[in-house]
């Protein structure tokens, strides 16, 4: 079955620490990759996306992600987090041959302590 795995369910870190969230998927073929974020009380927002080209993608709020095709991974990074980065983060994959639907990972709750 096609799946998307996020390795950490919960992450707690202090302000200014670096953040890396893992995401692996199990599809073959061409994919589009996304990271979404849901801040407390808000709706899901797109952080960044990868369709093609440079595998290092820069998104909003200082986030970036790297697509490593050989590892089927799309890890999210931020060098120095802020308290306002407290949120739940979702990796999502779209298999181009399967229409527009997104397959999500289970989400990672990130708590940044001030």
């Amino acid at each position, binding site marked *: 079955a096609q799946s998307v795995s996020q390795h950490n369910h919960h992450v707690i870190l202090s302000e200014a620490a670096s953040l890396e969230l893992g995401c692996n998927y199990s599809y073959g073929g061409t994919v589009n990759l996304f990271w*979404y974020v849901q801040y407390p009380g808000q709706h899901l927002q*797109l952080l960044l996306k990868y369709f093609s080209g440079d595998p290092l993608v820069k998104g909003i709020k200082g986030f970036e992600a790297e697509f490593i095709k050989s590892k089927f991974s799309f890890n999210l990074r931020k060098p120095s987090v802020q308290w306002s980065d407290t949120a739940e983060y979702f990796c999502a994959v779209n298999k181009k041959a399967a229409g527009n639907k*997104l397959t*999500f*990972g289970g*989400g990672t709750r990130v708590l940044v302590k001030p």
Partner: protein
Amino acid sequence: EAGVTQFPSHSVIEKGQTVTLRCDPISGHDNLYWYRRVMGKEIKFLLHFVKESKQDESGMPNNRFLAERTGGTYSTLKVQPAELEDSGVYFCASSRTGTGLNEQYFGPGTRLTVT
């Protein structure tokens, strides 16, 4: 521009009752999607409309769920009769056709509790 809106934000119903969720996509977005997140699980795709047509309904769990998008604008998702396992957050998303095909904008979700 206004974002995707969903109504109601919360709904609590008893097992066996009927509930109808509504989604208003971003104006001009032909693609409309429904997703669901059951407690503690991942967000799962339910179905995809292109205008008023169902493009992909492979994620609909069973025939107690009926989605419509008459006129290609807003969409409704009806659950009849509701069961306990239907509890969760139902998200709607929309996207343009063309180059923005895969960038989906999400609504705030409807939290459904079936007791």
